[in-house]
Every structure is written in structure tokens, then in C-alpha cells.
């Protein structure tokens, strides 16, 4: 293990370096703004650690290459931005169906369509409700800082391996482009990575029955059984893997709910609001799936109002409403198209509401 060190890095590079330290030695990707630096970082970095980098012909190919590489049981990842992630959905559905561990990074930009290249949070539905076809789930993390991005990247590989599930780091161009001091953990010893020899495609070496990795069964009863088994696993994940942060919520009458970059911005809004005598706090979901419904719902007892802020037209607000379950009003403020709400305008909206 190398000694932990604190260094100044750019967001995209922080995620790339964290992946390498987590034991990821395979990256397949296709350039798209605002995350091409991550692709470029992996192109430089992976050969230094005997890893493999490949620029594919399209994001469709990328996600299918990820499927192939993940089926060998090795740690593999890709990164992209919104239009690219849309194209990856084919592979994501197959990977989820075949229960393969791997990590996706979506540095979200303004959409729909080609949109723009500014930071946004408008891929929340696609990320958490299933962007591809079929009954499946991804574990989705929304980091608010580079330090958290590093930690969640490493965690992403671990939970992917633990549950054989694709994990998505959902972030945006703001985080991707900023520089912050980050403390990296040491390098994971590749020999201590989880053993997947009971299912991975490694060649039988004439010593065992063939392994067959697929997402399908043409017999509906058997397919239903596969889906039920997967959903049992999802239930365990919901129980075990929820992550969230609570900020100044002890006496809060207004609960601001926001994730990722926006979660960070609303913390400063709450600080200013408290100076003005408004008892506000922040509930910041870190795992967007599994979403911390019960944990957020508990605040319906003491809070008067919930206020969701997003860089979208309102997507996570639906999950907040589910958590609040009609017990208290849920207000929403958001900007879309790549416009980032300023602390000032969120504060103004908050003061209007209270």
C-alpha cells in the first residue's frame, strides 16, 4: 500500500485515478464533452499500470465491450456524457440482465437531444428508473465533491463486485471540470480482488463445466424466476446500501433536498437562511438508487415544508414526494438546459416559501 497523499486534481482525473487505485485495469470509451479528459486520462494512465485502454467506434460498442470484459470477471469501467449514455442503454440492460459487475460514469450535460455541454441533472430518470428495457436496477451514486467522487468510485467497484450489478456514478460537468485537493487511498492489491471463478468466462481449462453468461431465457416462467431472483438481490441492496447526508436537520422546519453539485450549493443557501432566522437544513441523497425514502420520510414529523432543488425540470422531486407521501407540502425549484441555479436565486425562492 502506498501512503495516502493529498493532491490538487481535476474532477475527471480524480475519478480516473480512483478507478485505477480500485483495481480497474480495463477502460473502453468514446469521447464526449464534458468528460473527454477522463477518457484521455485513462488512455495515458492505464498503460502505466499494464492496463488496457480502447477507444471504441461508438458508445453502443463501448457498452457491449464492457459486457464482454465484465463477463471475464475483471474490473472494468467507462465514462460518458448524456447523449453517449443514451446510446449505452442497450448494453446496460444486457449487463444488468446478465448480472455483471462494472462501473459507468455519466457526466451529465444539458439535454434533451444534443442539448449543450453545460452541467445538468436531467438524466436522473434515465439513471434511476431504468434507461434501457426490462425490469432492472443500477446502483447510482451522486457525489458532491471530488473527495466524495473518489470514495464513491472505489465503493462503486466494490459493491458492483459484491452484488454483481452495474454501478453508475452520476455527476455533472461542474464536478468534472473543477479542481480540488483530494486524498487518494493506496492501490488495491489485484490479488485480493473478489474471486469470480464460479461464474466468469475464463475458459474451462478442461477442468470444469462450461460457464454461460446470458441475460435471457425464452421460457417465460424461467425468465420470471431470473427476474425474481434479481429483485430479491435488489431488496437486499435497498436494505444495505443506502447513503445520504444530513446537514443542520435537527431543528429544521424546511428540509431542502438536493443531490450532487446542487446538494453542495444548497448547503451554503441553508447557512445564509439560518443567519436570517429560517430554520432550514439539507437532506442530500448520495445513493440515488437505492433512494433513502424512509430516512427522508422521517422528517415529515417535525418539518413543515420540503423544498427540492435540481438542475432539471424536476425529476428527483418525484422520489421526494414518494418519501413525503403527501404528509407535508413539497416545493420545487430548478433550472434546466445547463443553467446552474445560484445560491442567491435558491435563497430568494426559499424566502418566498417561508
Amino acid at each position: 500500500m502506498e501512503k495516502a497523499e493529498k493532491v490538487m486534481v481535476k474532477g475527471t482525473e480524480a475519478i480516473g485515478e480512483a478507478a485505477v487505485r480500485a483495481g480497474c485495469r480495463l477502460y473502453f470509451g468514446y469521447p464526449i464533452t464534458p468528460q473527454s479528459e477522463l477518457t484521455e486520462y485513462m488512455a495515458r494512465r492505464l498503460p502505466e499500470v499494464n492496463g488496457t485502454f480502447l477507444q471504441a467506434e461508438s458508445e453502443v460498442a463501448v457498452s457491449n465491450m464492457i459486457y464482454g470484459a465484465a463477463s471475464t470477471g475483471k474490473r472494468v469501467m467507462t465514462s460518458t456524457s448524456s447523449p453517449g449514455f443514451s446510446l449505452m442503454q442497450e448494453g446496460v440492460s444486457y449487463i444488468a440482465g446478465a448480472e455483471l459487475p462494472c462501473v459507468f460514469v455519466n457526466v451529465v450535460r444539458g439535454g434533451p437531444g444534443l442539448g449543450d455541454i453545460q452541467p445538468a441533472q436531467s438524466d436522473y430518470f434515465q439513471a434511476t428508473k431504468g434507461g434501457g428495457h426490462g425490469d432492472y436496477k443500477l446502483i447510482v451514486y451522486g457525489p458532491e465533491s471530488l473527495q466524495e467522487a473518489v470514495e464513491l468510485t472505489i465503493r462503486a467497484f466494490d459493491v458492483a463486485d459484491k452484488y454483481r450489478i452495474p454501478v453508475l456514478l452520476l455527476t455533472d460537468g461542474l464536478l468534472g471540470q473543477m479542481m480540488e485537493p483530494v486524498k487518494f487511498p493506496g492501490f488495491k492489491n489485484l490479488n485480493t480482488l473478489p474471486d469470480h471463478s464460479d461464474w466468469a468466462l475464463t475458459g474451462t481449462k478442461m477442468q470444469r463445466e462450461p460457464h454461460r453468461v446470458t441475460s435471457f431465457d425464452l421460457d417465460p416462467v424461467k425468465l420470471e424466476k431470473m427476474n425474481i431472483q434479481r429483485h430479491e438481490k435488489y431488496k437486499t441492496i435497498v436494505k444495505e446500501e443506502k447513503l445520504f447526508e444530513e446537514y443542520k436537520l435537527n431543528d429544521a422546519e424546511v428540509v431542502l433536498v438536493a443531490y450532487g453539485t446542487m446538494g453542495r450549493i444548497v448547503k451554503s443557501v441553508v447557512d445564509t437562511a439560518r443567519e436570517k432566522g429560517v430554520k432550514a437544513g439539507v437532506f442530500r441523497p448520495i445513493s440515488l438508487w437505492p433512494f433513502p425514502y424512509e430516512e427522508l420520510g422521517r422528517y415529515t414529523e417535525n418539518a413543515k415544508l420540503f423544498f427540492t432543488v435540481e438542475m432539471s425540470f424536476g425529476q428527483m422531486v418525484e422520489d421526494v414526494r414518494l418519501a413525503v407521501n403527501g404528509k407535508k407540502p413539497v416545493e420545487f425549484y430548478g433550472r434546466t438546459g445547463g443553467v446552474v441555479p445560484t445560491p442567491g436565486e435558491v435563497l430568494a425562492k426559499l424566502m418566498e416559501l417561508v
Partner: protein
Amino acid sequence: MAYAERFKAPTSLSEKEFTYCPGCSHGIVHRLIAEVIDELEIQGKTIMVAPVGCSVFAYEFFDVDGTVAAHGRAPAVATGIKRASPDNVVFTYQGDGDLAAIGTAEIIHAANRGERITTIFINNAIYGMTGGQMAPTTLLGMKTTTSPYGRRENIEGYPIHVSEVLKELSGVAFLARTKVTTPQDVIKTKKYIKKAFYAQLNNIGFGLVEVLSTCPTNWGLTPIESMKWLEDNMVKEFPLGVYVDKVGDVR
């Protein structure tokens, strides 16, 4: 070689019965691939990628590790496997709908990268599994369920010549078009398949064998008529032969 020895099932085939229609070439080609894997003694390190199409269950017919790719994406999946495990032997098995329509980008780029994988390409000029729709390889004038008036060049365009397109790509190490309608063809096809695997085993580049194949069921012909139809029509449109050979002489 004694008769019984020659015709015993290849070790690389599983016990599972083929699901193919009588007179379909898929079965013959499966056996040839299995014989080649046996002879090269690579069964224990081979990983297969089956396609979407009639051969979607191919990964169960071979006694090797395997998976099924999304429609057309087998070359990308195989690329992922091979890059993750360069010591394994990876092959894809794909129909013409799979490889020449939805998967055109994937096959061209895998071939062009000289990906160390082997592709067996079954060209039966039609979509078999979905019930006989037009394929990119459907002949001009040929009737299918989605070209009920016969394929017209001004509406549906021309049959695509995959081997002729791929032969221009520098990453290709072995490329041949063949058929399995006569015993001589079968022997030749097996030799080609072996060479396509050698292209991978000897780290020379990408190998592909295009096999002109029958689909009696969707052509609406008997197995014997199908063989004749293939000889009379498909061979004219899709000339047989070796298009690229950087492998050289092998046993």
C-alpha cells in the same frame, strides 16, 4: 482413419441437440468449428459469443465457456473479452442480419482493429429466426416477407458483399467465402475455419469465414432444392474464394 473414429461427435460439441431445421447449414458449420477446436486443442481456453438469430443457442451447443451478445454486437462483446483475457481464444458466430445490418459498425471496426478474434459468418440471404424478412444480403428479385415484390435495387438497394468490403481493411489476416453444399466444400470450409483461428492464435490479426448457407424453411424449398438454389443463385452474387490470407500454409 476408421469410419467410427471419423464420425464420432467432436468433444467440443455439447450433448444438447441442435434446434435447427432439416437441411439448414448452421448444424454442419457448428460441427466443423467443433472439429477445428478439437484439432487445435484449444477447447479449454475458448470462449464463444453467440448472436441473436437462429443460432442464439449456439453457446449451449459448444462445450466451451460462452455468452450471447445483443443483436449485432458480438464483435464488440468479443473485443471486450479478448482485451480482458488475451490468452483465451474468442470467436463469434453471426448471421447476416446480425453481422451485415444492425452490427455493420461493430464488425468493420473489429476487423479494422485487427482484433484477435475469429468470426464465422453465416450468409443465408434472409432473416431466419424472425420468419423470413429481407436481409442486407437478400438477392435482387428475391421475395421475402418484407420484400414481397422481390428485392428491387431502386427501393431496397443491392445485396451487400461483406467479404469484399472487409478485404480492404488492413487488420484482416484471414478472410474467405465458402459454402457447405458438397463434401469437397465442407472439407475446404473446415480448412478456412482453421486458418481463421490460426490468424488469432498466431497473433496475426482478425479472421472471418463467410459461409453461404441454406434456409429451407424461409426460402420455402426442400433441403435438396435449397442446395441447388444456393449453387445456382447465391454463388453468382457472392463469389467464393480466399480474399485475404496472411496466415500462409498450415497443416
